[in-house]
């Protein structure tokens, strides 16, 4: 049975910090930094926001849009690298919040920036096999960048949820494939607050190799070429990498436009490709094909060949905010407020 997207939801925290504000603190050239990374600003979670609240917001929007009761959902998987608990699932809280409990399976996923798409693939398997009717896959992150680390310019927050099923689809997932190796380009060990990364090693042998290999594999298996797709969404750790990867595979910058969000909201990690896909579905028309490739450090890529159906027009596009409207809804903050919100200030006895 072919699986696809029944509905989707998104959430982006309203706070933004400009690249300039971060660059000024660390004595970097703000203009050169913004241009070099292709990132003008990034989203920042509020004091009462974490992966649970972000995931719940996106999940509720997906359920509202689907018009289905919570107990229609047989699986909830939440992909993130910033789950609030090391032990205790985010997914159970999300399942409870959408009233999907107790007769369902739930688990947390982690695969750096592609845990969300891994969750989509898992749900595809469950619904295709008939084990469940609908599965909810969420990618959500409040990603971490150490003060002064280049990651601080991009590590941001967001969430997107996809209700995966086999009937009443707004988009059919024609095919998916993955490319996975043991490539240590980025990691965070148990108990560490901030991740570490291999600098330029995160580029050619990590991001580009995996995205290009997985993307080519999908094109080959689908027998399609880049020009067959109306849109393309690539993982976007900064504003530059996805454009280069797209060019390498033969896609044009226009195809990436609706789903390239990092320049304005930063890298939302597990939510990056899911949010880009949600933003693309927001503007897609029936028959449009969307090429998707997510990347997660450590390392792997997931590619999807998606075709938008007629139902995209009948689903409620007005009752729920578009990704663009979430992005437009913003409050700029300075580095001091950012540092407070992200727990980078040591208060009193060192408590956050």
């Amino acid at each position, binding site marked *: 049975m072919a699986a696809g997207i029944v509905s989707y939801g998104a959430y982006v925290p309203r706070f933004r910090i400009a690249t300039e504000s971060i660059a000024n603190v660390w004595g970097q*050239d703000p203009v*050169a*930094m913004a241009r070099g990374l292709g990132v003008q600003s990034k989203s920042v979670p509020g004091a009462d926001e974490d992966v649970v609240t972000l995931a719940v917001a996106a999940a509720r929007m997906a359920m509202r849009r689907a018009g289905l009761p919570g107990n229609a959902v047989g699986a909830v998987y939440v992909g993130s690298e910033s789950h609030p608990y090391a032990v205790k699932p985010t997914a159970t809280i999300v399942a409870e919040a959408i009233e999907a409990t107790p007769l369902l399976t739930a688990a947390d996923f982690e695969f750096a920036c592609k845990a969300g798409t891994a969750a989509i693939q898992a749900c595809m398997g469950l619904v295709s096999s008939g084990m469940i009717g609908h599965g909810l896959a969420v990618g959500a992150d409040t990603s971490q960048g150490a003060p002064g680390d280049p990651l601080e310019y991009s590590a941001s927050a967001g969430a997107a949820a996809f209700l995966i099923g086999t009937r009443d689809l707004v988009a059919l997932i024609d095919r998916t494939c993955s490319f996975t190796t043991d490539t240590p380009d980025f990691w965070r060990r148990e108990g560490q607050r901030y991740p570490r990364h291999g*600098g*330029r*090693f995160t580029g*050619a042998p990590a991001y580009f190799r995996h995205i290009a290999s997985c993307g080519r594999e999908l094109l080959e298996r689908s027998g399609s070429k880049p020009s067959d797709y109306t849109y393309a969404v690539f993982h976007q750790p900064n504003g530059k990498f996805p454009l280069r990867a797209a060019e390498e595979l033969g896609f044009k910058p226009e195809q990436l436009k609706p789903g390239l969000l990092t320049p304005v909201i930063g890298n939302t990690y597990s939510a990056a490709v899911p949010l880009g896909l949600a933003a693309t579905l927001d503007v897609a028309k029936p028959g449009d094909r969307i090429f998707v490739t997510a990347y997660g450090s450590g390392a792997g890529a997931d590619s999807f060949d998606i075709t938008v159906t007629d139902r995209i027009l009948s689903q409620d596009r007005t009752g729920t905010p578009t990704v663009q409207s979430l992005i437009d809804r913003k409050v700029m903050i300075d580095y001091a407020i950012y540092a407070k919100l992200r727990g980078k200030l040591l208060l009193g006895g060192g408590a956050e």
Partner: protein
Amino acid sequence: MRDVAILGAGITQFGELWESSLRDLGIQAGFEAMRDARIRSDEIDALLVGNMAAGRLIDQTHIGALIADHAGLAGKGVPAVTIECADASGAAAFHHAYLSVASGLHDIVVVGGAEKMTDLPDEDVTDIMATSLDQQWEAFFGATLFADYAMVARRHMHEHGTTREQMAAVAVKNHAHGALNPKAQFQRPIKLESVLGAPAVAQPLGVLDCAPISDGAAAVVLCSADRARKISDSYIKVAASAQAGDSLALHSRGSLCGFEASRVAMEKALKLAGRSRKEIDLAEVHDVTTISEILAVEDLGFVKKGEGGRAAESGMTALGGELPVNTSGGLKARGHPLGATGIAQVIELVEQLKGNAGRRQVKDARLGLAHNVGGCGATAFVHILEAV
């Protein structure tokens, strides 16, 4: 002392070679040099390897034994030695290989240089490169190699009116040369504005004023000139190989605007070769920063002190100019795998003197000079090679 010739040469691609280890690179360059020289492994009397920092970069010392073992020389009892003079380690290894053949002790010596730098984060590499300075009096207090060169640049600008544009002209020129070298790390030309607008490393030096972090290896085979003559009438002779030293810390020197070690090594080399600097057709100099090349062309006496900036700006040191400098792209564009650089410089001269340099060929090149500096000027080597 007998005359020494270069019988063969081999060099790897320079760059971020994620798939290659130090031993892969060393062996690749070494085998290529042996094939080029048409020698068998049982003819090798000694192996010398220039390496600055494998002990910290990849936690491996004993590089001579490592390369000899993996090149299949271990069972033959070939003596192998690692030689370290900071980023002049390659030139140091070449110098000692030259001495051992010139003395008559050895007939055939394989001498290489190799460095694997990209396994560590950039900031760690910066710290490791700073170990070529005086750790107790410079690096410990935060000085990096490029910070020392930035002080040199500031002083040179102050005393001689050298401009940022003149320094940037060195980078533009060497990238243009690198674009013609298929082994170079950077093979694309850059614009003056890009150099001036690049993020600062240590002001006034920006990213494009400084040599990159690189992996790579290079090797040559040395033999007596008598042996070379038996194979061919035309060969590359080592006309001179000289070294000079200076105080380790910058603050102990009389002047920041030149490296006395470079000047002295040049005088020695010219004397040994019995040549004048006017006869030199091309030079590979130690442009670890743009100001370094300006210093080098002055210290080596190709122009007067203070005129090095103009030499780059006017095109004098570009391909087709009066004295082409760093036709390989130099450390700046070919890349700077620390210990490999000194040998890579020699190989560029060999290619040029043999007329094999393709699109970057210097016409009628007969006499070439290589200049390799350790750290911020405490060590300098000058070799002069001659097409016979």
